[in-house]
């Protein structure tokens, strides 16, 4: 199980992947808004999304786990 973490603090604008969905490295899975800028979060690794730990409108800090991804 791997963890996809937030690289900066911000508000979750949208979640582009669903639990159970297969994702590939480089795929945009989430958008975070920080300092009035929309930043796409791309998966650093592929796999199946096991759990999404955030919700749209929620605030995340740098290092917070956004998703756990299984093999």
């Amino acid at each position: 199980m791997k963890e996809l973490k937030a690289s900066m603090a911000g508000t979750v604008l949208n979640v582009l992947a669903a639990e159970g969905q297969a994702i590939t490295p480089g795929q945009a899975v989430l958008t975070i808004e920080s300092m009035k800028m929309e930043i796409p979060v791309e998966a650093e690794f592929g796999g199946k999304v096991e759990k999404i730990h955030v919700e749209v409108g929620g605030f995340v800090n740098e290092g917070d786990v956004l998703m756990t991804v299984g093999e």
Partner: protein
Amino acid sequence: MKKILIANRGEIARRIIRTCNRLGIETVAIHSEADGDLPYVSEATEAVLIGPNPVVQSYLQKDKIIEVAKKHGVEGIHPGYGLLSENADFARKVAEVGMVFIGPSSDIIEKMGDKIESRKTMIQAGVPVVPGTEEGVTTLEKALEEAQKIGYPLMLKASAGGGGIGMVRCESEQALTQQFASVKNRAKAYFGDDVVYLEKFIADARHIEVQIFGDHHGNLVHLYERNCSVQRRNQKVIEESPSPNLPQNVREQLCEAALLAGKAVNYTNAGTVEFIVDSNNEFYFLEMNTRLQVEHPVTEEVTGLDLVEWQLTVADGGRLPAQDTIQTSGHAIEYRVYAEDPKTFFPSPGKLEKLQWGEGARIETGYEEGNQVTPFYDPMISKVIIHGKDREEALSKSQNFFNHVTISGVKTNIPLFKEFIVSEPFASGDYATAVLPEWIEKSKEENTL
């Protein structure tokens, strides 16, 4: 006015407080939970916690802000820039409760906020506008039909848009087809209105704007122009006045056109008429900003005037001086220091561990050492404004200044300034709006940034 409320935060709130203090006007500051420690909060006469950190729950709470204003007995509300400064509904509500909105009337804000409406007004007034659609476009079919007449490349823009949001360059029919729905959706999401329009893309253009001011006695003056062509993500990074490489006769024509634009709507208070100027010095109206702008200190430095004082004077019913009394001296450049990665432009929030500025510049900042730059608001940490007897001196002073700045805790774009201001395209003054992204691209290829 004896007391005003500032419906804004950070640097601009601090800037307004400074002038009010000098004029003996009391100030009421509002702040979110995250901003409680910022200097403007303690520098105001009174301060009120307005709500949680997201702007929609704090700085955009129109009714709550007006309630605070009433409770604290203020006579006027200064909206600063951004946030509610160009919100016609807010301006109207302020006026309805008998307070002074320190800016133009809600009618003017509304008219100029609608880009299609403002284009029509300018055409009627005889101000040149960029060739484009006269009415809003709602279907892709119509957009493709209009695009045939205008020609590619073109800009697809949200009618209610601004600040680079809801604006896309389309090189071909295929690009327009791909982007149309997305721009409409973004326009709806950001501005609550999905009307879009098309404009011809002007290549190698400079973004030059003219500061205007109107009073309630029918006087309208200009305070010359600023070149704002150094941009990233369609947002300004460096502004300067006077605009380099602009023939004097074109400068005069631009200022005259800006006055024509202002007269067309009986403009009052501070406003800016933005133009794009092509490589043949032909210019076109882009939009009118109905507020004080971030880059106003550039104009203040060359004219020696205090634009916030002028705003207060006009709002209080005072008269503007005659045009021929407004003169300029020397050259001023403003650099917007952002908390962002200088290569990727990605935001870099964090604690300002060190914030030490050098000598020789006017610093407008909302922060002090030890403050947090939070992810909730704009990434601008400060504005650095440098004035010289000419452009050469201003650039030389800029180099010296940036070599003596220490900021740690967040990444900033200062390393970029240090390299960029000595680069050929900027130093020569012969640059258009693509100068910064093009220079960054080239520097990356050459590994010099």
